C-alpha cells in the first residue's frame, strides 16, 4: 500500500516538474505506439473489411488464423524480429536492430491481427445491412470496401484503439528488439521492467501511473476529436 501512495506521489511530482527523462521515454512510447497503430490500421482495417465481404475458399481458415494470431506471445514476435534484423540475420545489413523502427515493426506484427479481426467482425455486421443496397448499385468490390470502411468508421476506431491499447502496454517484444537503451530505445514499459528489477517499486509504479494516464489521454483525445458517443448511430 505504501509503495502505491509513494508511487502516485512520485508520478505527480515527475509530471508536474516535467522530469526530462520521463518526458523523453513517454514521448518515445507515444511515437512508437502511434506509429505502429497507424501502420497496423492501414493494413488491418482494409484486410478485415475485405475478408468480411468476400467469399473465397480459404476464408474460414484465414479468419481462424487471424483470431489465433491475436494471442501471439510478444516475446516470440520479439525474438522473430530480432533474428530477422540481427547482423547475422537476413535483414541485418539494414542496421535496424535496437532502433525505434524495429520496435514499430514488432508492434505492427503484434497488433495487426487484432485490428483486422475486430474490423472484420464490425464490417461483417454492417455488410449484412448494406449487402442488397451495394449489390443493386453495382458497386465494385473495392467501392464496397470503401463504403463500408467509411460508414463503419466509428466501430473501426474501436479496432484501432484496441490495437493501440495492446501496443502501449507491451514490453516483451520491444525489450528484445529495442534493447531498453537509455536515451535511445527506452520506453515506459521497459523502464518499468528495469526499475522493478532494481527493487525500485515506487518509481516503477509511478511510471505505471503515467502509462495509464497516457493511454486514457490518447483515447479521450481521439473520442473528442472524432465526436463519437454522440447522437449518430455509429
Amino acid at each position, binding site marked *: 500500500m505504501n509503495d502505491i501512495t509513494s508511487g502516485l506521489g512520485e508520478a505527480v511530482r515527475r509530471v508536474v516538474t516535467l522530469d526530462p527523462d520521463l518526458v523523453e521515454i513517454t514521448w518515445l512510447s507515444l*511515437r512508437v505506439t502511434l*506509429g505502429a497503430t*497507424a*501502420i497496423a490500421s*492501414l493494413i488491418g482495417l482494409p484486410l478485415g473489411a475485405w475478408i468480411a465481404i468476400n467469399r473465397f475458399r480459404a476464408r474460414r481458415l484465414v479468419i481462424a488464423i487471424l483470431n489465433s494470431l491475436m494471442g501471439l506471445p510478444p516475446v516470440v514476435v520479439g525474438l522473430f524480429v530480432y533474428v530477422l534484423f*540481427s*547482423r*547475422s*540475420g537476413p535483414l*541485418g545489413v539494414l*542496421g*535496424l*536492430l*535496437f*532502433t*525505434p*523502427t524495429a520496435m*514499430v515493426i514488432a508492434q505492427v506484427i503484434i497488433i495487426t491481427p487484432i485490428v483486422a479481426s475486430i474490423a472484420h467482425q464490425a464490417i461483417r455486421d454492417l455488410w449484412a445491412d448494406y449487402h442488397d443496397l451495394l449489390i443493386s448499385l453495382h458497386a465494385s468490390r473495392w467501392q464496397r470496401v470503401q463504403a463500408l470502411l467509411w460508414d463503419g468508421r466509428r466501430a473501426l476506431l474501436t479496432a484501432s484503439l484496441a490495437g493501440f491499447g495492446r501496443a502501449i502496454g507491451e514490453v516483451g517484444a520491444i525489450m528484445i528488439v529495442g*534493447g*531498453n*537503451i*537509455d536515451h*535511445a530505445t527506452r520506453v515506459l514499459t521497459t523502464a518499468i521492467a*528495469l526499475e*522493478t*528489477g*532494481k*527493487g*525500485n*517499486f515506487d518509481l516503477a509504479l509511478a511510471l505505471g501511473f503515467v502509462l495509464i494516464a497516457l493511454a486514457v489521454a490518447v483515447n479521450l483525445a481521439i473520442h473528442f476529436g472524432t465526436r463519437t458517443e454522440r447522437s449518430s448511430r455509429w
Partner: protein
Amino acid sequence: MKLLKTLLPFAFATLAASAAAAETMKMSVTTSFANSGLAEVLLPEIEKDTGITVELLVVGTGQALELGANGDVDAVLVHSRAAEEKWLAAGNGTHRREIMYNDFVVIGPASDPAGARSAEKAADAFADIANAQAAFVSRGDDSGTHKAELKLWSAAGIEPSGDWYKAVGQGMGAALNTAAGLDAYILSDRATWLSFENKAGLELVFEGDPALFNQYAYLPVNAEKYPSVNAAAAEKLEAWLTSDKAKGLIDGYQIAGQQLFHFNAVAE
C-alpha cells in the same frame, strides 16, 4: 496513402537521427554492472574523455554473449570465464581483458533456518540449505551468477531439485524480488544486493570464501566476422576502462559505505 506518406519520412528521420549522432557504440553488459549503479558513474565520464556514447544492453551473461556472437553489439562486459573462453574459441571476439572483480554473497532470511551463517565455506553453506530443504531461488537463466551457483552446488556434491529449489529464469533484481517474497535463500553479486531496494526480510548470511570471487572481463567483438562492428570505438573504450581514471572511479564507487567493485586490469 496520404497517412503512409506522412509516416514514412518520420520513420526514416528516426533512423537518420540515431545514425547522425556523435560516435556511439553498443555494449552488452550483465545486469549487475547496470543495476549496481556503476554504469551511471562511468558512462558520462567515458563520453567526456573519449567522445564515445556507449549504449548499454543490459541482459544476462548468456544473452550478452549471444548478442556479441550475432554481431549486434561492439563489445561485451560479462563475468563467466568458462563461457567467455568458449565464446572466444568460436571466433566471436578478439581477446579477453580482465577489468575488475566483485564477489558473490549468499543472501537468506534473517532467521537463517538452514544455519548457513556458521558454515566454513560457501559449498558448506549450500549443503546446509539443501539439507534443511530451505527455499532457494536460482536465477536459472544461464547468466554468470547462475553458472557460479551451479559450480557451488557441484562443489557441495549436490544436484539441487525438489520443491525448495525454485529456478525463476530471470535477472538478478527480479530473482531477488522473488526471494524477498518467498523469504528464500539466493546467491547474488554483492553490488546488486547492496543497491537493491526491496530487501524485505532478507539479510546477507554468508560471504568471504575465495570460491565466491567474481571476475568481470571486457571482450571486443570480432570485426573480421562482422564488418559493421565499431572496432575503433571498442579499442578506445578498452583503453579507458583499463586507465588510472577508471581505476579511481571503480574503486571509489561505494554504496552504504561499502566498496562494490575492485579494479584489477593489468596494463599492457
